[in-house]
C-alpha cells in the first residue's frame, strides 16, 4: 500500500519527467521492433510504419499507464476544477453573488461560534479545569475574608480554596508610576490552579504567615514584556508598588491571566499585603465582602457533594455571625465570568447572537440554493448538447459537483478570512476605559475547518438536486425547445413511461426558498431595527448629570504613598489649581463617578430604627464629594443646599440624597432636614436633595444614593471633575498639566472626557447594537442578492415571451406585472411572515437589547419600508432590462 502511494506520489512530483520517460519507452519499443523487421527484410521506412501499426494507438496505452498509477483520476479532477473555474469566471455576477452570500453566512457563524467558544465553552488555562469551581453567595459573587478563612479551614470536600481580589496598584516602572490592575491572591492560589511559572517561582501557602510579611510580586507575561522590556534577569529584582518595595518572584506563562475570562491582570501580590496595597485592611472585617473564592474539589468528590457541604457551611456561618452573614447561601458556580453574575447574561446574549447567525446562514443557503437552481436551468441546453455528443453522465455530474465544490470552497474561504479579520479586530480591541478588559477570541483551527467543511457540504447538497434533474432529462427534448424559451413549465408526472418535455426546475420549490429567505431576512432586519431603537432609547435615558463638557481625571493618592491628611491637602490644592484654569465654569472632586466601575454602597437606616441588622435597612450607593462636585457634574439640586468648605470634621454630619433615597429610605418627597444612619455610624442630617440618576448600570431601576462631604469622610481615591467651556480634549490636557505641576510622580488614570468614561456603561448596549446591526446589514445584502438573482433570471428566461407580448401590444406595466409580479408577491408574503416572526421573537430580542420592543410602530414601518426599498432597488435593473427588450431581436435570438 505504502509502496503504491509512493509510486503515485513520485510520478506526481516529477510529472514532466515521468511523462517523457513513458514517451521514451514507447519510442524505443518502436525502434527495437523496426530493427527486428529490417532484419526480417523490410525497408526501413516500411519497417517503422509496420512497427507503429503493430503497437497501435500510443495515446490509449499511455492513458492506461497513467490509470495504472491512479494518475488518471487526479488528472480528471484537475481538468474538472480548471473547467469549473472557467465556467465561474464566465459568469462573474453569479459567482460573486454566490460566493458573497456563502461568505457572509459562514463568516457570521464562525465569528459567533468562536466568541461563544472562547467565552463560555473553552476551559480556563489551568490544570484540570473540570474540578475547579467558584464558591459564591446566591446574592452576590464575593465573600468576606474571614468567611473565606472559615470555609478554607472547615470544608471537607475541597482539596483547597483560594481567595483573590482585583486591585489597582501604583507600579513604578522605568517610565514613571503607572496604575496597573492586578490581583491580591492567597498563597495557595497558583498551586491550587496548577500553574507553572515561566521563570522564577510563585508564592505559596507558606507565604501567608501574617499581614505585611510577604512583599512579593508575580508579573504577567505581558507586564514583563511591556513594562519591564522582557528583562531576562527580572527574577529577584525589586519593584516599587504604592511606594513599597516588592521583590519579583517570577513571571506567569503567557496564556495565564487568572480565572476571569475578560480580565487580564498584570501583577499578582500575596493577599497578606492587602493592607499595604489598599491602605486599609479588611482581612479581619466580616462586614466587607471583597474577595472572590475559588476551590478545587478533592479527589473523587462530586460537585453535588461539595454543594451540599457548602450549604451546611453557609448555614453554620450565618448562624454563628448573624450580623454579617444573615441569609448567606453558598453554591458552586463555573469559574470564568465572576461566578454566575456575568455568565447568565453572557449566555443569553451569545445564545441570541448564535441564533441570529444561524438565521443568516439559513438565508444564505436558501439564496445559494435558488441561485444554483436558476443556473442549472440556464445550463440545461449546454448539458444536453454535451450529453448528446457523448459525454458520460458520471463525468458531467463530477464536473457540476466540482463547480459547486469550487464555489463552496471560495465562499467558505472568503467567510473564514472575513471571520479571521473580525476576530482579530475583536481581540485587538482595548476597552476605552481604564480597566484591562480583553476578548481573547483566538480563532480556533477546528472552528475554521468545520466552517469550511460545512460550506462544502451545503454547496454540494444544493447542487446535487439540480444536477440530477438535469441529467435525468432527455437531451433530445432539451435540444428541441426545452425551458430556455418555454412557457411556464408543467409539473412532471411521476412513474415510468415516455417522458414529456421535462423542465429541469420545479418552480414551487424555488418560490418557497425565496419566500423563506425573505422571511428570514425580514426577521433579521426587524431584529436590527429593534436593537437600534433600544440603543437610541438607552442613550436618551436621563443619567442624572450632564456628561457633555466635563473632563475628568482619576488619581489614587493612596497608591502614591499619601496618607489621608496629606491626601486631603493635596486634593484642596488640586481643586485650587483647577479653578484657576481658563474656561472653567465649575470644578470639584469626589471618590468616584456615577456609572464608573468603582461603586460603593452602605446599608442605611432611618433615624428611629434600632435593629441595625443589614436586613432591616436599605442599600444605598454612596459618594464622598467636595463642594462644587455636583455642580461640576451638572446634577440638579432640587432642595436644600450644596456642601461648603465648612462641612468638615468640626461640624455636624450632613449628606445630600437623591429623590429615590428620600422616598424609599425616609418616606418623604422632600427629605431636607431629616436624619438617617449609614451602617453602624452616627446620625447624618440631610442638607440637600438632588434629582435621581443612574449609578451602577444604565439599565438599573431607580436606586437610593447619597453624597457625603469628603472633608467629613476623607478618601484618597480621587476623581477630579472639571466643567469647562473648552473642548473636552483640551480641558483634559490642561487638567493633566495642572496635576503634574503639583506632583509630577503622581500616576493619573482615566484622563479624558466624561463621555469617554461612559463608554464602559454603554459598551454592552453598543456591542449588541453593532452585532445586530451587522446581522441586519447581512440580511439586507442577502435579500437584495436573492431578489436580484431571481428577478434577473425571470427576465432572461422569458426574453422571447416578453418579446411576443410586446409585439402583440403589451404596455410596460403589463410586462412588469407579468415578469416580476411573482417576485413581488413572494417578497410581500415573505416579509409579512418575517415581521410576524419578529413579533413572536420578542423574548429573544429583549434578552439581547435593553429597552427593546418589536411592538413599536417605528420598527414595523421601518422594516416594511426597508424590505420594499430593497425589493425595488434589487429588482430595478432586471425590470429595466425587461422593459428594454426589443421584440424583433428577442424573437430572432433563437
Amino acid at each position, binding site marked *: 500500500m505504502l509502496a503504491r502511494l509512493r509510486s503515485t506520489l513520485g510520478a506526481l512530483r516529477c510529472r514532466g519527467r515521468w511523462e517523457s520517460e513513458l514517451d521514451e519507452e514507447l519510442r524505443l519499443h518502436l525502434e527495437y*521492433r523496426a530493427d527486428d523487421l529490417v532484419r526480417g527484410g523490410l525497408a526501413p521506412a516500411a519497417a517503422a510504419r509496420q512497427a507503429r501499426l503493430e503497437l497501435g494507438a500510443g495515446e490509449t496505452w499511455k492513458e*492506461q499507464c497513467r490509470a495504472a498509477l491512479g494518475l488518471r483520476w487526479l488528472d480528471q479532477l484537475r481538468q474538472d476544477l480548471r473547467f469549473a473555474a472557467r465556467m465561474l469566471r464566465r459568469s462573474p455576477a453569479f459567482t460573486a453573488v454566490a460566493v458573497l452570500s456563502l461568505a457572509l453566512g459562514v463568516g457570521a457563524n464562525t465569528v459567533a461560534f468562536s466568541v461563544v467558544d472562547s467565552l463560555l465553552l473553552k476551559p480556563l488555562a489551568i490544570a484540570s479545569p473540570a474540578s475547579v469551581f467558584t464558591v459564591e453567595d446566591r446574592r452576590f459573587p464575593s465573600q468576606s475574608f474571614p468567611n473565606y478563612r472559615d470555609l478554607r479551614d472547615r470544608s471537607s470536600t475541597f482539596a483547597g480554596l483560594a481567595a483573590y481580589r482585583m486591585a489597582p496598584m501604583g507600579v513604578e516602572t522605568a517610565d514613571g508610576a503607572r496604575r496597573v490592575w492586578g490581583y491580591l491572591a492567597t498563597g495557595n492560589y497558583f498551586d491550587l490552579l496548577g500553574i507553572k511559572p515561566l521563570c522564577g517561582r510563585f508564592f505559596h501557602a507558606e507565604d501567608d504567615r501574617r499581614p505585611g510579611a510577604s512583599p512579593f510580586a508575580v508579573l504577567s507575561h505581558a507586564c514583563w514584556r511591556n513594562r519591564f522590556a522582557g528583562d531576562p534577569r527580572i527574577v529577584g529584582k525589586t519593584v516599587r508598588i504604592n511606594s513599597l518595595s516588592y521583590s519579583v518572584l517570577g513571571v506567569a506563562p503567557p496564556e495565564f491571566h487568572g480565572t476571569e475570562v475578560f480580565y487580564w491582570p498584570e501583577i499578582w501580590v500575596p493577599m497578606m499585603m492587602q493592607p499595604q496595597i489598599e491602605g486599609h485592611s479588611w482581612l479581619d472585617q466580616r462586614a466587607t465582602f471583597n474577595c472572590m473564592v475559588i476551590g478545587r474539589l478533592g479527589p473523587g468528590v462530586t460537585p453535588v457533594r461539595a454543594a451540599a457541604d457548602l450549604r451546611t457551611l453557609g448555614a453554620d456561618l450565618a448562624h454563628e455571625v448573624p450580623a454579617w452573614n444573615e441569609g448567606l447561601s453558598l453554591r458552586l458556580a463555573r469559574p470564568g465570568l465572576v461566578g454566575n453574575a456575568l455568565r447568565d447574561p453572557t449566555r443569553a446574549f451569545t445564545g441570541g447572537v448564535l441564533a441570529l447567525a444561524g438565521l443568516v446562514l439559513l438565508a444564505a443557503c436558501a439564496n445559494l440554493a435558488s441561485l444554483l437552481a436558476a443556473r442549472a436551468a440556464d445550463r440545461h441546453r449546454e448539458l444536453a448538447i454535451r450529453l448528446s455528443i457523448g459525454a458520460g453522465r458520471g463525468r458531467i455530474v463530477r464536473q457540476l459537483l466540482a463547480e459547486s465544490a469550487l464555489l463552496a470552497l471560495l465562499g467558505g474561504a472568503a467567510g473564514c478570512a472575513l471571520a479571521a479579520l473580525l476576530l482579530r479586530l475583536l481581540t485587538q480591541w482595548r476597552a476605552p476605559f481604564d480597566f484591562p478588559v480583553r476578548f481573547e477570541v483566538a480563532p480556533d483551527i477546528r472552528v475554521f475547518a468545520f466552517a469550511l467543511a460545512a460550506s462544502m457540504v451545503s454547496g454540494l447538497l444544493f447542487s446535487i438536486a439540480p444536477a440530477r434533474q438535469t441529467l435525468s432529462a432527455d437531451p433530445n427534448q432539451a435540444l428541441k425547445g426545452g425551458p430556455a424559451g418555454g412557457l411556464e413549465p408543467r409539473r412532471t408526472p411521476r412513474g415510468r413511461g415516455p417522458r414529456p418535455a421535462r423542465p429541469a426546475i420545479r418552480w414551487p420549490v424555488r418560490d418557497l426558498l425565496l419566500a423563506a429567505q425573505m422571511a428570514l431576512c425580514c426577521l433579521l432586519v426587524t431584529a436590527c431595527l429593534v436593537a437600534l431603537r433600544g440603543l437610541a432609547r438607552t442613550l436618551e435615558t436621563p443619567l442624572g448629570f450632564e456628561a457633555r463638557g466635563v473632563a475628568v481625571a482619576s488619581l489614587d493618592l493612596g497608591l502614591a504613598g499619601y496618607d489621608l491628611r496629606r491626601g486631603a491637602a493635596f486634593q484642596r490644592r488640586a481643586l485650587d489649581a483647577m479653578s484657576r484654569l481658563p474656561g472653567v465654569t465649575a470644578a470639584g472632586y469626589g471618590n468616584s463617578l456615577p456609572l464608573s466601575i468603582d461603586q460603593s454602597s452602605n446599608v442605611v437606616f432611618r433615624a428611629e430604627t434600632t435593629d441595625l441588622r443589614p436586613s432591616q435597612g436599605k442599600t444605598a450607593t454612596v459618594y464622598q464629594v467636595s463642594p462644587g462636585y455636583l455642580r461640576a457634574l451638572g446634577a440638579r439640586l432640587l432642595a436644600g443646599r450644596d456642601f461648603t468648605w465648612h462641612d468638615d470634621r468640626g461640624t455636624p454630619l450632613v449628606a445630600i440624597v437623591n429623590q429615590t433615597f428620600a422616598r424609599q429610605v425616609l418616606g418623604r418627597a422632600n427629605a431636607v432636614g431629616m436624619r438617617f444612619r449609614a451602617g453602624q455610624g452616627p446620625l447624618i442630617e440631610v442638607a440637600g436633595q438632588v434629582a435621581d440618576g443612574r449609578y451602577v448600570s444604565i439599565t438599573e431601576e431607580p436606586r437610593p444614593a447619597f453624597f457625603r462631604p469628603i472633608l467629613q469622610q476623607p478618601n484618597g481615591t480621587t476623581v477630579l471633575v472639571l466643567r469647562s467651556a473648552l473642548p473636552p480634549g483640551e480641558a483634559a490636557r490642561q487638567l493633566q498639566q495642572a496635576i503634574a505641576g503639583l506632583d509630577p510622580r503622581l500616576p493619573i488614570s482615566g484622563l479624558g472626557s466624561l463621555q469617554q468614561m461612559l463608554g464602559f456603561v454603554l459598551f454592552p448596549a453598543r456591542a449588541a447594537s453593532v452585532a445586530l446591526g451587522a446581522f441586519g446589514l447581512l440580511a439586507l445584502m442577502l435579500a437584495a442578492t436573492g431578489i436580484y438573482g431571481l428577478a434577473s433570471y425571470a427576465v432572461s428566461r422569458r426574453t422571447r415571451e416578453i418579446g411576443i407580448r410586446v409585439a402583440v401590444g403589451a404596455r410596460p406595466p403589463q410586462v412588469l406585472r407579468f415578469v416580476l409580479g411573482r417576485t413581488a408577491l413572494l417578497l410581500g408574503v415573505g416579509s409579512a411572515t418575517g415581521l410576524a416572526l419578529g413579533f413572536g421573537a420578542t423574548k429573544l430580542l429583549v434578552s439581547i437589547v435593553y429597552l427593546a420592543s418589536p411592538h413599536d410602530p417605528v420598527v414595523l414601518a421601518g422594516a416594511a419600508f426597508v424590505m420594499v426599498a430593497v425589493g425595488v432597488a434589487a429588482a430595478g435593473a432586471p425590470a429595466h432590462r425587461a422593459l428594454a427588450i426589443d421584440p424583433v431581436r428577442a424573437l430572432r435570438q433563437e
Partner: protein
Amino acid sequence: MDAAADLLPGTLDLLILKALSLGPQHGYGVLLRIEQISGRRFRIEQGALYPALYRLEHQGLLDGEWGTSDNNRRAKFYRLTAAGRARLREETAGWQRLVAAMAAALAARPEEV
C-alpha cells in the same frame, strides 16, 4: 502464428512475471521472451504490455531502471522484486490447480458420474 490464441484475461501479468523471472529485460525484450517461451502461440497486443508493466511496477512486483541495452541503446529494464517472485510462485501454483481441475473436469466420463 496461425494457431495463435487470444490471452485469457489476467494471464498477461503472469506471463510477464515468468518472463522476467528468467532475467531482467526491457519492454520489447519481455515481449520477445514471452513469444519465445510460449512458442509464439499467443497473440499479444504490443501496446497492452506497457500498462501491464506499469501496473506491476506500481504494485511493487517489478523494479524499473534505465540502463543500456546490448546494442548500446538506452532502455528501461524491468527486474522482478522479492514480492514479484513470491507472487509468481502463488500465481503459478494457482494456475496449475486451475489447469488440473479443468483437466479433471473435462476428462470426466459418463460412468464416473
